[in-house]
C-alpha cells in the first residue's frame, strides 16, 4: 500500500507504518500489552487486530520480561517482531533481554547473528501520573552499544523511521512520545529508508544559535524558534532523530557557523543525552568558535511529582527555551 500525499497526525502516521509493514512483510508481527484494546496508545494502532488478525497482533499477559525475550528469540528465527511497551516505565522488567541479550548478540557471536527486533517504547507522561508513569529513559538506551535508538519528532519520521527500524537487522529502540500525537502534516508516499544511513536533521536554518532537541523537545524547540524568528532572532533547529549510534557532525558543523549551542532534552540532567551533545561539540569545534558557554535545558534531577502544583513546573516550556536563547545571545 503506497500512500499519496495525505494529511496525517503523528499517531495515524505510526499506524500507517504498521499497516504498511504488516501488509508487505509476512515476517512482521506485533506483540505487547493492550493490542486488542489499544486505548493506551492513542490512535497509533487502531484496529490492527481486526485487519491483520490476532495471530499477528498479539495481546499478552502482564509479562514484559518474557514477551521481550520472546520477541528477541523470534527475531533470531527469521521474524521481524515489533514489541510494544505502551509505557516506557513498564519495560524495566525487560532489561535483561534488551541490554544483555539483544544488544550483545551480534558482537558476542562475531557478527554472525542479528536480532532484528524493534522495541517500540512510549513516553507517556503528564496528567499527574507521577514517578513510575512518566519516565523518558532514552539516554540510558543510548548508552548501550548494540542498540539503535530512534526518537522521531516529526510526523513523517514517526512513520518512516518506524519502517526503517523494523527493516533494520539490528535491535532498535523506537521511542515515541504521546505529547507529539496531535501534530499534523501532509505526508508524501512512504519511503523505505536505511536506518544506518539516518542521523540528525536540520529542521530550520538559522545563523544566530544552534538549538538541538530530540522527540518532544524538538517540537518545543521548533515552536520557540518560530516565535524568536518573528523577533528577528535566527535559530537553527536540529533534531537528533538517532541517538545511538550518534553522528554529531551536522550539529558540530552548525555550531561552527553560529558559535552558540543550546540543547533541550526532556530527560534528566546528570549523565543525560544533552551532556553527550555538548561534549561532542566542545571536543570537536575550534577553540575560538564558541561565543559563550554551551547550555542545556533538561528535567530537574528528580522523579516526576504527581501534585499538579509541582508537575506544572517540572516540565520545560517554549518560554523557558525562548528566555534562555535570549540570555545566551545577549
Amino acid at each position, binding site marked *: 500500500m503506497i500512500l499519496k500525499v495525505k494529511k496525517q497526525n503523528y499517531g495515524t502516521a505510526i499506524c500507517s507504518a504498521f499497516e504498511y509493514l504488516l501488509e508487505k512483510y509476512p515476517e512482521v508481527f506485533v506483540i505487547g500489552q493492550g493490542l486488542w484494546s489499544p486505548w493506551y496508545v492513542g490512535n497509533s494502532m487502531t484496529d490492527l487486530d481486526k485487519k491483520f488478525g490476532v495471530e499477528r497482533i498479539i495481546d499478552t499477559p502482564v509479562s514484559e520480561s518474557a514477551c521481550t525475550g520472546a520477541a528477541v528469540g523470534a527475531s533470531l528465527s527469521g521474524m521481524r517482531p515489533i514489541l510494544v511497551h505502551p509505557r516506557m516505565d513498564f519495560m524495566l522488567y525487560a532489561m535483561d533481554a534488551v541490554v544483555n541479550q539483544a544488544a550483545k548478540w551480534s558482537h558476542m557471536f562475531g557478527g554472525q547473528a542479528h536480532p532484528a527486533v524493534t522495541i517500540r517504547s512510549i513516553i507517556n507522561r503528564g496528567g499527574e501520573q*507521577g514517578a513510575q508513569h512518566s519516565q523518558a529513559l532514552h539516554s540510558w538506551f543510548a548508552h548501550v552499544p548494540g542498540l539503535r535508538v530512534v526518537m522521531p519528532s516529526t510526523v513523517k519520521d514517526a512513520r518512516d523511521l518506524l519502517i526503517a527500524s523494523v527493516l533494520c537487522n539490528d535491535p532498535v529502540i523506537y521511542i515515541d512520545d504521546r505529547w507529539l500525537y496531535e501534530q499534523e502534516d501532509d505526508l508524501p508516499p512512504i519511503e523505505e529508508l536505511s536506518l544506518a544511513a539516518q542521523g540528525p536533521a536540520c529542521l530550520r536554518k538559522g545563523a544566530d544559535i544552534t538549538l538541538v532537541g530530540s522527540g518532544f523537545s524538538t517540537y518545543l524547540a521548533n515552536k520557540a524558534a518560530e516565535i524568536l524568528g518573528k523577533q528577528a532572532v535566527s535559530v537553527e533547529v536540529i533534531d537528533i532523530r538517532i541517538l545511538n549510534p550518534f553522528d554529531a557532525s551536522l550539529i558540530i558543523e552548525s555550531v561552527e557557523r553560529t558559535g552558540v549551542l543550546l540543547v533541550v532534552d526532556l530527560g534528566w540532567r546528570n549523565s543525560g543525552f544533552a551532556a553527550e551533545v555538548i561534549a561532542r561539540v566542545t571536543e570537536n569545534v575550534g577553540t575560538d568558535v564558541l561565543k559563550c558557554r554551551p547550555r542545556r535545558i533538561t528535567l530537574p534531577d*528528580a522523579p516526576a511529582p504527581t501534585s499538579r502544583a509541582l508537575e506544572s513546573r517540572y516540565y520545560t516550556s517554549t518560554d523557558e527555551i525562548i528566555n534562555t536563547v535570549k540570555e545566551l545571545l545577549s
Partner: protein
Amino acid sequence: MNDLDINQVNYLIDPANCHNPIYIKGCDTNDLINYLKMMMMIRKVEQKLAIGRRDGFIGGPVHLGVGQEAIAVGVSGSLTCDDRIFGAHRSHSHLLALNPDPYRLFAEVLGKVTGFSRGMGGSMHLWDGPSGFYGSVPIVSGTVSLAVGAAMAARLQKTNHIAVAYFGDGAMEEGVVHESLNLARIQESPVLFVVENNLFASHMHISLRQPSDMQSRFAVANHIPYKLADGNDVVAVKNAASELITHSRNGQGPGFLELITYRWYGHVDWRDDIDVGVHRSLDDVDNWRMRDPVTRLSKAMIEQGIWSAEEEKKLISMLDNQISDAWEKAMNDSYPDESATLNCVYEI
C-alpha cells in the same frame, strides 16, 4: 490443588452464584459491625473519588476497588501496625482498612501537602508507615518481592511480625512474583501473598491470559499453604487470612490467599459501564453487584437481629457527613512547596 478447590473456583467465578447473605453465625457482633462500617466507609470514599475525578478536581488516574472492599477489611482484621503491608495501583482500601482516615487520602489524591505521602504520590503511591502501610505503587507486581524482604527482616529481627503483599491476577503473570514465592518458601519468610483475583488485568479477561483461572496453583507449585475464598464475603476472608497469618507468625513461613472478586468500575477512573476499550458485559457487572460484600453482610446481620435498617440509615448519614467534611477540608489545603520536587529525592 484438589478437585474440590477447582470446583470452588469455577463456582466463585460464576457471577450468578453467592447472592445470598453471608454466613455469620458465631462471629463477634462488634467485629461484624466494625467490618460493615469499614466497608461502607471505603466504598463511599471511593465513590467520592469517582465523582471528584469525573468533575475534574482530581487530575491523575484513580483505580477504584468498589466491589472488592471485603478483602482489605477481612485481611486487616488480623494485622497490627507492626506488620509490613504493601499494595499496588488499586490500594485505597488496603490503606483505609489500616488507617480509616478519608481526609488524608483525599488530600493525597488531590496532591495536597497534608496527604498520606505529603502530596508527592497521589492515588497510585500511598504510604503510611505508622499504621504499617509501607507503600503502594502502580508498577504491576512492583512490591511483591519487597514484601518478601520485609518478611525476611521481621524474621532476622526475631519478631513475630509479618509482611503482606496485595496484588492482582494480572501481577501473577510477572516473573518476579514466581521468584518471590520460591524465595519466600525457601527462606521461610513470614509473608502473606494476597491475590485479589478479579478476573481482569485492565481490558483482558483472565481466560485470554492464563490457562487456568486458579491462582492458587502457583502456591501449590511452591509448596506454600493456600486458602481460596469468596472475596466478597468478609467473614470468609477474615477466617482464611487469620489462619494463614497465625501460621506465619508461628514461624511456619509464607501463606497464599486467593480471593475471587470483581471490580464494579472500569480499570481506571469513574466509568462503570465500560472497561476502557472493551465493553464489558453489563449483565456480568449487574450480577456481580448482586454479590455485593456490603449488602450481603448487612442483610445477614439484620436477619440475625444484631443490626437494623434504622441503624444502617444512621451510619450512612454519619459517613456521608464525615466524608463530605473530609473532602472540603482537603480541597482547602495547600499544595506542597515547590522545593519538594528536589528536596524529597534523597534523605537530605
